[in-house]
């Protein structure tokens, strides 16, 4: 069987037969030689389960010819056996390879739904090129016995927004397979099918977490003014997972009622995981008092909640609360101070913050000290003298963090300190960081310096790091 050629707007598509010959390539080149204004040539190898090495050399020759014409060569639908040959011959690095679904028939494309590597891409392709032929195939698959075909048919119809399938998709809510239910729930949400909302509520308590989460998401998308109240009731459930899902849905609805439910629930929630979810969720509300609630949560008994509160303060860019957060750096509970210092490092770029952190440094515990040094690097105000003083601290983590902070503030000083650390610091973690800094800063003569350090270094990790830097060059 001979090859086929199609021309379309500067793109040439060549479909090779299962065993392409030298003669095929001679003819292909001849046809392309006379054509002007080619931008891309796609060679489709989907029929070739194997190609001979002489075909590879012909592909290289074709690429050369196309380079002269300033056109790109793309190999499409390369099968595994051919891919291995391209890897062995190192051609894989010189030719673009991609999937071209336009070469396949509707039936062949639908078969890809069972291939986890390409099923999503095929579904996207069909949705983008949705026509009567694709529609008929998707409707056929909706009645398939195979749940994977059914699931992907539903998702593809949803992506194409084909509302004529609404009844069948509603019916899929009764399917016995969780993934089919999930696909139907999501698509009904995308399509805005309010009629299904009540039925979707029943899936909130599904044993399958994916199905329950899809239900929460679609309820939020289909919500009206009553849904916050209905979902708010789920916050009373003894099932922690259900409370968390309800919080996700309420957060997405994001109205005043949902806010009040979540705000009030923070005080009563017993699970630290759910409180951490609440600390994150509240930051999605554009309300002034959220920052105060989060400040309170910085003192929560759970470290997870404190961490979530600090991240949320950063998320809402709570610059107006910098003064309050700074005060918490010296809290008697050192983990409050730790998360407060972390938040300051992300929120503040002012000298007043770095001055305050330096002032209280000696009064705080070791974990807070580490967070302060990290924060000073992020704030970026020059305090290199203070940080250089820390390079003689007896704690290696402090020395390492100080080196990193100096690097963020003053690169030249950091290079000096890194060189000195490589010669003198007795801890490999600090020396490892020093190599990292030299590799990033690339000061003049640093390769020779690293080579000399390599000779006398006795730590395996530092030696490996130096080697990787030198080999990278």
């Amino acid at each position, binding site marked *: 069987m001979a090859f086929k050629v199609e021309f379309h707007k500067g793109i040439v598509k060549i479909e090779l037969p299962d065993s392409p010959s030298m003669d095929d390539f001679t003819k292909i080149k001849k046809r392309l030689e006379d054509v002007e204004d080619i931008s891309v040539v796609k060679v489709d190898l989907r029929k070739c389960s194997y190609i001979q090495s002489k075909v590879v050399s012909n592909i290289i020759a074709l690429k050369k010819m196309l380079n002269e014409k300033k056109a790109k060569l793309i190999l499409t639908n390369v099968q595994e056996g051919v891919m291995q040959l391209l890897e062995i011959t190192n051609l894989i690095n010189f030719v673009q390879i991609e999937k071209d679904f336009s070469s396949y028939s509707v039936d062949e494309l639908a078969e890809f739904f069972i291939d986890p590597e390409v099923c999503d891409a095929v579904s996207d392709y069909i949705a983008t090129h949705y026509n009567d032929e694709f529609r008929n195939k998707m409707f056929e698959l909706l009645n398939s016995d195979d749940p994977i075909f059914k699931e992907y048919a539903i998702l593809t119809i949803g992506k194409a927004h084909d509302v004529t399938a609404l009844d069948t998709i509603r019916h899929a809510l009764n399917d016995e397979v969780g993934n089919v239910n999930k696909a139907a729930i999501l698509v009904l*949400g*995308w399509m805005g099918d309010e009629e299904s909302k009540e039925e979707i509520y029943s899936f909130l308590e599904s044993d399958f977490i994916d199905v329950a989460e899809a239900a929460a998401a*679609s309820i939020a998308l289909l919500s009206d003014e009553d849904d916050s109240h209905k979902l708010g009731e789920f916050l009373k459930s003894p099932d922690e997972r259900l409370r968390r899902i309800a919080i996700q849905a309420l957060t997405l*609805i*994001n109205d005043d009622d949902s806010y009040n439910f979540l705000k009030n629930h923070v005080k009563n929630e017993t699970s630290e995981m759910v409180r951490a979810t609440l600390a994150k969720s509240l930051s999605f509300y*554009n309300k002034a008092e959220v920052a105060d609630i989060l400040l309170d949560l910085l003192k929560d008994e759970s470290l997870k909640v404190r961490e979530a509160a600090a991240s949320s303060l950063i998320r809402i860019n709570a610059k107006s609360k910098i003064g309050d957060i700074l005060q918490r750096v010296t809290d008697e509970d050192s983990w409050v101070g730790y998360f407060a210092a972390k938040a300051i490092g992300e929120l503040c770029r002012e000298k007043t913050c770095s001055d305050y952190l330096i002032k209280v440094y000696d009064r705080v515990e070791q974990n807070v000290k580490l967070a302060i040094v990290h924060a000073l690097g992020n704030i970026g105000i020059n305090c290199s003298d203070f940080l250089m003083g820390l390079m003689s601290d007896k704690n290696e983590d402090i020395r390492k963090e100080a080196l990193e902070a100096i690097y963020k503030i003053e690169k030249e000083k950091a290079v000096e300190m890194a060189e000195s650390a490589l010669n003198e610091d007795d801890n490999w973690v600090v020396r490892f960081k020093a190599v990292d800094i030299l590799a990033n800063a690339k000061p003049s003569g640093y390769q020779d310096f690293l080579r000399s350090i390599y000779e006398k270094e006795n730590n395996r990790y530092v030696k490996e790091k130096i080697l990787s830097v030198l080999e990278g060059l």
Partner: protein
Amino acid sequence: MFDVEEKAGKKIVYIKGEVNGETGLELKNNVLEIFKQIDTVILSFKNVIYMNSSGLREIIDLLKRSKRDKKELRLCEMSGDIRDMFSFTGLDKVFQIFDSESAALR
């Protein structure tokens, strides 16, 4: 609420602050107007901090209408939190979402 710039034959709409029912509707109507002059619009979420389900509904409707009119809508530069909202609702499978503006412009 948003700025519009033209780059590489496409319009980029830089959304700011909050996407809710009201701002989402305004965004949708403006983008539909832009689609009268151009085939591809990119919505940049770089400066979006807040978004809710009403805002998402307007963006879904915008996508539906753009598909109907054979226009292309792309989204880019979402923060992790906003991207999470799209994955939670499965809408990350429906929209073309790019990590960067340059990737969306290609």
